[in-house]
């Protein structure tokens, strides 16, 4: 009897410990977002979104940094999406299971763990200097594309794997070639999953600062990029710069810019969730 009681008590104790652990992360996140919103939300207005950086905190805005971030996001997507998907298709559908392909797989997983500043150094040497792109939006996008490529590849492979075997078999049974099967059955069926992975990877890219600073992204830019070869700044760099300024007004600006950055991330995550749901319904 005593033993049963003890076990029940342990059971309950673990349950509450689990609840505590779950809430811990949520509460911390809520406190963080709450304090940022309290600090920054009254600073956000149209002027803040459309003004240039300034020495006076109440006149400064994020226009060029925001536009830079949008450019980088779009170009990174254009570069990382086709390369990542093609690599994943190769590894999943074409590659023979031998030493070489397992070596490739291990390396791709390793790449996902390389610190982002290393990608910055790589980008500086290859894209900025050897390929002479300069500290342009394009060089920044290539660097970030490299950074998220492993994530895109891994999530795309998972999405392709999740396509029921019956679909693949049916396609082959009708005499379709491998390419026909991939392009007409597997990709459409897994596209929602692929997009989810890509968008989550992009949410990571939009918050990166270190690799972009290394390749030479600027802090003060008085114009929005007009072409991929233009110089640029991004939101995290502007935030970083404002946080380290002595005048307190800049702290408020940083909080406001963080809210905008969070909004972008949340929106992207929302889109990812939407695609995932749509795709799941389609499969059923």
């Amino acid at each position, binding site marked *: 009897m005593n033993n049963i009681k003890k076990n029940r008590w342990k059971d309950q104790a673990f349950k509450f410990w689990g609840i505590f652990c779950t809430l811990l992360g949520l509460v911390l996140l809520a406190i963080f977002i709450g304090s940022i919103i309290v600090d920054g939300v009254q600073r956000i207005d149209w002027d803040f979104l459309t003004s*240039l*950086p*300034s*020495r*006076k905190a109440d006149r400064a805005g994020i226009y060029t940094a925001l536009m830079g971030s949008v450019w980088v996001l779009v*170009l990174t997507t*254009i*570069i990382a*999406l*086709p*390369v990542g*998907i*093609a690599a994943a298709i190769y590894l999943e559908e074409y590659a023979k299971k031998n030493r070489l392909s397992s070596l490739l797989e291990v390396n791709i997983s390793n790449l996902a763990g390389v610190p982002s500043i290393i990608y910055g150094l790589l980008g500086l040497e290859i894209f900025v200097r050897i*390929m*002479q*792109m*300069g*500290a342009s939006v*394009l060089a920044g996008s290539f660097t970030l594309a490299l950074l998220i490529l492993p994530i895109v590849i891994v999530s795309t492979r998972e999405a392709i794997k999740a396509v029921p075997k019956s679909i693949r078999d049916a396609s082959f049974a009708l005499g379709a070639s491998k390419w026909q099967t991939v*392009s*007409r059955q597997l*990709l459409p069926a897994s596209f929602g999953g692929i997009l989810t992975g890509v968008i989550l990877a992009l949410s990571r890219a939009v918050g990166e600062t270190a690799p972009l*600073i290394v390749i*030479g*992204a*600027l*802090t*003060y*830019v*008085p*114009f929005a990029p007009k072409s*991929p*070869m233009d*110089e640029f700044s991004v939101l995290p760099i502007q935030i970083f*710069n404002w*946080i*380290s*300024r*002595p*005048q*307190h007004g800049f*702290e408020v600006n940083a909080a406001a810019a963080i809210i905008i950055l969070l909004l972008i991330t949340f929106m992207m995550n929302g889109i990812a969730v939407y695609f995932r749901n749509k795709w799941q319904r389609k499969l059923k």
Partner: protein
Amino acid sequence: MKKILMITALGTLMLSCGNNKKEDTNNSIAIDGSSTVYPITEAMAEEYRTEQPDVNITIGVSGTGGGFQKFGRGEVDITNASRPITEEEKAIAAENNIDYLELEVAYDGLAVLVNPENDWVNCITVEELKMIWEPEAQGNITRWNQIRPEWPDEEIHLFGPGVASGTFDYFTEAIVGESGSSRGDFTASEDDNILVQGVAGDKYGLGFFGLAYFEENKDKLKMVAVDGGNGCVKPSVETVSNGTYTPLSRPLFIYVNSSSLQNPMVVDFINFYLDEASDLLDDVGYVPLPEAEYKKQKQNFNEFVERNQGEPAGE
């Protein structure tokens, strides 16, 4: 699927046109360098824009060392620096045939700060600071009463800028005597606001950072006067500007590449910089040079322009 192919094609297309240099160099001025000097140059660029809205001035923050690296490769027109160029950096510039001019644009005072509850330190000598910060102090000087016997028998907690910053270089050179030579067991941060928080929350803390950070946090910190041999002096706009606050006040620089002077906009911008600096520095928390010193810098610059252009600078 067609969409993906198109996107790929587009991506390749962009890759292939990747190596065109900037075509209209005349309307852009590229600046990089120190994060300490950045706010000054940002203010100048912002103000200059009201006069010349078509000139695009871009400023990066690679740090003083990173800025000199790009400057030595001829990648930027102007670099911000919180210390003079080193021999090594000079050699790189010479190797790439880059001639340049150094211009002083402002002073920055490094303040020594303690917690407001600290009622025992009002003035500290350079020797005492050296005793605290030199490399030999690591693990040995850990209590306040080891510095002066009448100070409390409590642990001393040190806060200072990260080792990569020009501020750290300057402080160690002025106090310890050798740039970069310091004890390692102190709380370091590249973000001076973290140091402010550290000292403000620790009764037995002591730290050093830019005067501007004290000005903005007067209620949370207590400033310590420094005795450099001529009595105790507290840093202020006045004592930093007239040179009585030594050795912890330093000049801040910009360096100009001579070949950039072919661009009349660069010449115009630098003249504007030297004319307007004293009015704008207060906004960003730095100390202007004396008026005569700006005149001298301007004269140096105009001579440099004449040497490199063969004609006087257009006003």
